[in-house]
């Protein structure tokens, strides 16, 4: 196994590395939370990193010929290829380092994908990548809950009822997207016992996210982080509220922040406070009604939405994480 870069945890926002790896040159939308995710991701990983990016808005809007924002080596990969791209990059480095064809040193390999590329098309490839304990790689799924680069189409990670160009509310069918958002991170954690680190995060909680990136890269082997990224264009809200919406997603208990390190589950931030009963969940309505994509939801819809979130906290074995019902207590 190749060497792992030791990236200690950052204590306090002021200690986040000042060095930028993702700078000007990109042309993401105003208020794009995914751009912040990219920026924090590479700040946390540092310059000895290779980043591979799947097709998606973080490719098309981010990486234009002659104006790349990436200071680190960066390469495009196909929509469903983040797992294979990470595996191939890490395998190439590992093989050449082992055979003495390249200087043996720790190099971080990060492949990112959107929810379309990761939760939908690339899921099998990510699953395969997480089986290769001999390769150090991180797959980061930035989830803006739609195919945001191709005019906002519903994905397997879109919330129930969300208006998209493939799920527009109409005269006969008000709710066109009847699928509940996939529970991706726990699925990958549960399905890959040899994967030592799976986490969820949100750039609204920058320090938490930074440290999760660093822990994933330090622990070694294949790792996965799922990040929720509010998207002004796709979610239909004023760009200045991106950060706030990220926080609301967590505070309403809809997005749960945690890490699973060597099988140990730890919730962080407001999710942890909710779990321990220190604070109560905000009504989901506060989050949904801030976004145009849910403007067509009626009272009944909102109640249904809230009931599903309540169920995940009140009835799931691991609240907000694992959707198995608790066994009857003896």
């Amino acid at each position, binding site marked *: 196994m190749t060497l792992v870069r030791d990236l200690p945890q950052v204590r306090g926002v002021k200690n986040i590395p000042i060095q930028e790896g993702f700078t000007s040159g990109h042309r993401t939308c105003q208020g794009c939370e995914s751009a912040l995710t990219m920026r924090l991701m590479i700040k946390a990983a540092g310059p000895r990193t290779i980043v591979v990016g799947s097709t998606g808005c973080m490719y098309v809007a981010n990486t*234009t010929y002659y104006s790349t924002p990436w200071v680190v080596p960066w*390469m495009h990969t196909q929509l469903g290829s983040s797992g*294979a791209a990470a595996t191939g990059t890490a395998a190439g480095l590992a*093989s050449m380092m082992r055979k003495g064809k390249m200087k043996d040193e720790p*190099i971080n390999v990060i492949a990112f994908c959107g929810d379309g590329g990761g939760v939908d098309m690339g899921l099998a490839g990510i699953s395969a990548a997480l089986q290769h304990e001999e390769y150090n790689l991180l797959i980061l799924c930035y989830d803006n809950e739609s195919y945001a680069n191709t005019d906002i189409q519903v994905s397997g990670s879109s919330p129930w009822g969300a208006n998209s160009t493939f799920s527009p509310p109409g005269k006969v069918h008000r709710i066109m997207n009847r699928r509940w958002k996939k529970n991706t991170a726990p699925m990958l954690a549960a399905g890959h016992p040899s994967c030592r680190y799976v986490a969820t995060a949100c750039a609204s909680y920058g320090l938490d996210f930074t440290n999760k990136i660093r822990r994933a890269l330090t622990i070694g082997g294949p790792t996965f982080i799922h990040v929720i990224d509010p998207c002004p264009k796709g979610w239909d809200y004023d760009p200045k509220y991106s950060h706030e919406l990220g926080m609301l997603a967590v505070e309403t208990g809809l997005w749960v922040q945690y890490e699973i390190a060597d099988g140990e589950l730890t919730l962080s931030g407001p999710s942890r406070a909710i779990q321990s009963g220190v604070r109560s969940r905000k009504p989901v309505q506060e989050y949904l009604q801030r976004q145009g994509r849910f403007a067509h939801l009626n009272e009944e819809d909102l109640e249904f939405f809230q009931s599903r979130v309540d169920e995940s906290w009140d009835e799931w074995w691991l609240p907000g994480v694992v959707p198995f019902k608790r066994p009857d207590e003896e």
Partner: protein
Amino acid sequence: MTTVEEQLFMTEKEELISGSEAVAIACALADVDVITAYPIRPYDTVMQYVSQLKANGAFDCDFIVAESEHSQFEIVKHASSVGARTFCGSSGVGWFYAFEAIAVTAGLRLPVVAMVGNRALDDPGAFGVEHNDALAVRDLGWMLYWVATAQEALDMALMAWRIAEDPRAFLPMALSCDGSFLTHSQAIVNVPTQEQVNKFLPGYERGQLQLHPDNPITVAPQVNEDWLMEIRRQSNEAMSRTPGVIKEVYEEFKQVFGRGDPSPFLEEYMMDDDPDIVLMGMGTLALPVRVAIRRMREQGKKVGFVRLKFFRPFATEEVQEALGGAKAVAVIDRDYSFGSPSSGGVLFNEVRAALYPLDNRPHVVNFIAGLGGREVRVRDVEDMVDITQKAIDTGKVELECNWIGVRE
């Protein structure tokens, strides 16, 4: 203590092996860094041999069994981008499952070497050989070579990395091996020594294009209409340079290993007396064709054969020179191209187009034969020659595309 590798490749020796095994041995000799596998018949035999060689310590590589052909080709693509020597392969619809990755590998100018165990495309299911799988990538920037013998498979595999990894090319290359007839049939193969191979095949240097923290480049940014045409032009120029690279590498190979044909592009058989009829085809059908030609020569018919080895780059001038003097050319296609000009095969239409600029054009007749692994028999070849002779006698091609050996 000698390693298994040294024991294996210390002395030159003859071995009875299949085409797939020959390519696997070439992988070991070439010290390939990353190899990806996914099972589909008939190409997958090469990966069985590769895994055995690795398991027995014959060579050190990262051998990854992917979860699909798409990932299989994506993994080697990315390994190649950081400077690793790579190998993979597929057959039939497996090759098509990887099509996206195959296209971008060429677009990125990454010198991946792949083996295609030619197989009919589903549906309906069939294991046998057809050339349509590999031919589908003919426009994308892959070099495509059709192998006829196990020896040629080993030799061309060694040359493939050298050609593909030449910075003048930096293009991927596929070795097309007819399913069963080559992948599974054994023949005596001269296996070279590691020392010979080291002399011939240098390491892969990606240079300024290598993705590494010491060389922080951005690969494949979005270019749109602003730059794509220039980039396509560069790929076209790279492909135009490959004939020169191929000739150079082929000559050097002959010097080091002491075997090879006069031309890397064509193999000519009984062509010295400028025969009236020249048969043309690719791959293992060379075998029955040669037998048929010997038989017909005994009967006094002036017939010859040209086997096209490189389909891409297509050696236009060599083909014109070899076929231009004939009265009629019979092109045998182990493929189909429904709705194409004259409803002919892929090779037929390419050869006919290549001959068009000549002042004295031979008649060109097409024969679709051996689909799905059906045997091309000696008497099928004789039928082809009879039909072609008629075109010479009557001065016109009655039916441009003829299906041979098909139940009517």
